[in-house]
């Protein structure tokens, strides 16, 4: 096996791996966006900034408090999630009855402010974050060499996405969430504190973004801009998958990561735009997205 379609297998698998890594971030972030949009009716443009905050909190915990990666993986989502709860309580809750546009504008403005504050304090050059010792090095899989940390990111993202899917689709808590997404007043009338559920859901979606940010810290530089670059692609992913579906967000996220990786191998010139080309085609053929329901 020297070549596959005229491509050396090392290069092919290497790009596939990169595609899966990117796909992990696309999937986790678009999952959070889908959950938030479903219940809050808000397109959370702050998502990228919250992902960036996750990475920065990890960096601060390590450099200021000496708390390692594993602690950051728990603490950063909790802190950034709490910040999300604050945003929901003080700002977003006033917008639920208005058009999507208001939520989008508010969260977009918040993203710019948050990024500006971080740029002011940390500069825009980016800060390094070490791969934790336990995940250094790599493993020879026979057909390719797999850096351990990258394998970990894919695996843990997949697990987090699937657990989230399971909770939403298969548990009682998830049934409340699905019902409240469809008809919040009726769920209230059953005795469920829907406003609190909305707050916690937003907090959870934000925490998910921050978790992704911690995962990203050792791979990419920790920089104020890291979320802004990513979130544009993630929004394309969400549009392609369709806002309504949890599994749709996960599959589309990983799938598009892989498509992007393969494009880098077969037609590198298009790799930066392929997702947007797919988006345009999907919008023409299926305006509600691949897995979306018209609502």
């Amino acid at each position, binding site marked *: 096996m020297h070549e596959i379609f005229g491509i050396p297998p090392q290069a092919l698998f290497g790009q596939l791996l990169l595609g899966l890594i990117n796909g992990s971030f696309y999937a986790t972030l678009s999952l959070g966006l889908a959950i938030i949009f479903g219940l809050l009716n808000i397109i959370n443009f702050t998502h990228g900034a919250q992902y960036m905050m996750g990475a920065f909190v990890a960096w601060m915990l390590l450099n200021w408090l000496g708390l390692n990666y594993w602690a950051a993986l728990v603490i950063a989502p909790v802190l950034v999630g709490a910040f999300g709860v604050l945003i929901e309580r003080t700002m977003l809750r006033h917008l639920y009855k208005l058009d999507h546009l208001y939520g989008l504008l508010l969260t977009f403005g918040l993203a710019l402010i948050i990024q500006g504050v971080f740029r002011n304090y940390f500069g825009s050059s980016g800060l390094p974050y070490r791969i934790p010792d336990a995940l250094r090095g790599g493993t020879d899989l026979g057909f390719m060499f797999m850096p351990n940390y990258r394998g970990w990111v894919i695996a843990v993202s997949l697990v987090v996405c699937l657990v989230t899917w399971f909770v939403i689709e298969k548990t*009682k808590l998830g*049934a*409340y969430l699905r*019902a409240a997404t*469809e008809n919040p007043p009726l769920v209230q*009338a059953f*005795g469920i504190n829907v406003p609190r559920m909305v707050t916690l859901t937003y907090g959870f979606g934000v925490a998910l973004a921050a978790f992704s940010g911690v995962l990203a810290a050792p791979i990419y530089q920790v920089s104020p801009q890291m979320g802004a670059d990513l979130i544009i692609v993630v929004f394309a992913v969400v549009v392609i998958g369709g806002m309504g579906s949890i599994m749709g967000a996960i599959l589309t996220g990983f799938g598009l990561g892989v498509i992007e990786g393969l494009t880098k191998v077969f037609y590198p010139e298009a790799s930066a735009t392929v997702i947007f080309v797919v988006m345009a085609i999907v919008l023409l053929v299926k305006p509600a997205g691949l897995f979306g329901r018209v609502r």
Partner: protein
Amino acid sequence: MAEPMLSVKGLNAWYGESHILHGVDFDVRQGEVVTLLGRNGAGKTTTMKSIMGLVGRRSGSILFEAGETIGLPAYKIARLGIAFCPEERGIFASLDVAENLMLPPAIGEGGMTVETIFELFPNLRERLSSQGTKLSGGEQQMLAIGRILRTGARLLLLDEPTEGLAPVIVQQIGHTIHRLKKEGFTILLVEQNFRFAATVADRHYVMEHGRIVDEIANDALAANMEKLHEYLGV
């Protein structure tokens, strides 16, 4: 005489700028089945939603078991022991039948067991894993009633449970209401079909333009037929 279970006084309600209820007064005693009759748009649904706390702005007084509820959010009103079965049934499409049935959390002791609910509505047992909205209209209505019997709520608000259903199913729902009354439930029922209402209720209130305009005991219904025809325009 004992305090009524539910006592509505001077209830006003608004949807945005439109003033819909203009001082609604009525009460429901423990164990009674009471109907709200009235033409389309009279304000029957709005009255139920106001009791449930689902209308944006309301004023007046709604006492439930002697406690004022007018300022409470819907989820707190529900936890006092009031359950609502909406006119559009409100079956969730993203939940299967079992999930729909088990959705409302128990808010008190003494709810009906799922086994008893299946006894009342045998169709539900066979459709548990179907998507909620794949059920027929009648089955959806059974599900919408069934799921609020589990919770321990003692006052049921049923908004037009017979609307658009076949006669056999209307009959089944009639039997169910009798059975629920016997089990001690108190029921406020909105109906346009007064022939059906007459078979299940103790008293009737007639609504017009956001007010209660008449009260008729069920055994006086026959004597008031002419008046009623006029109220309801049938």
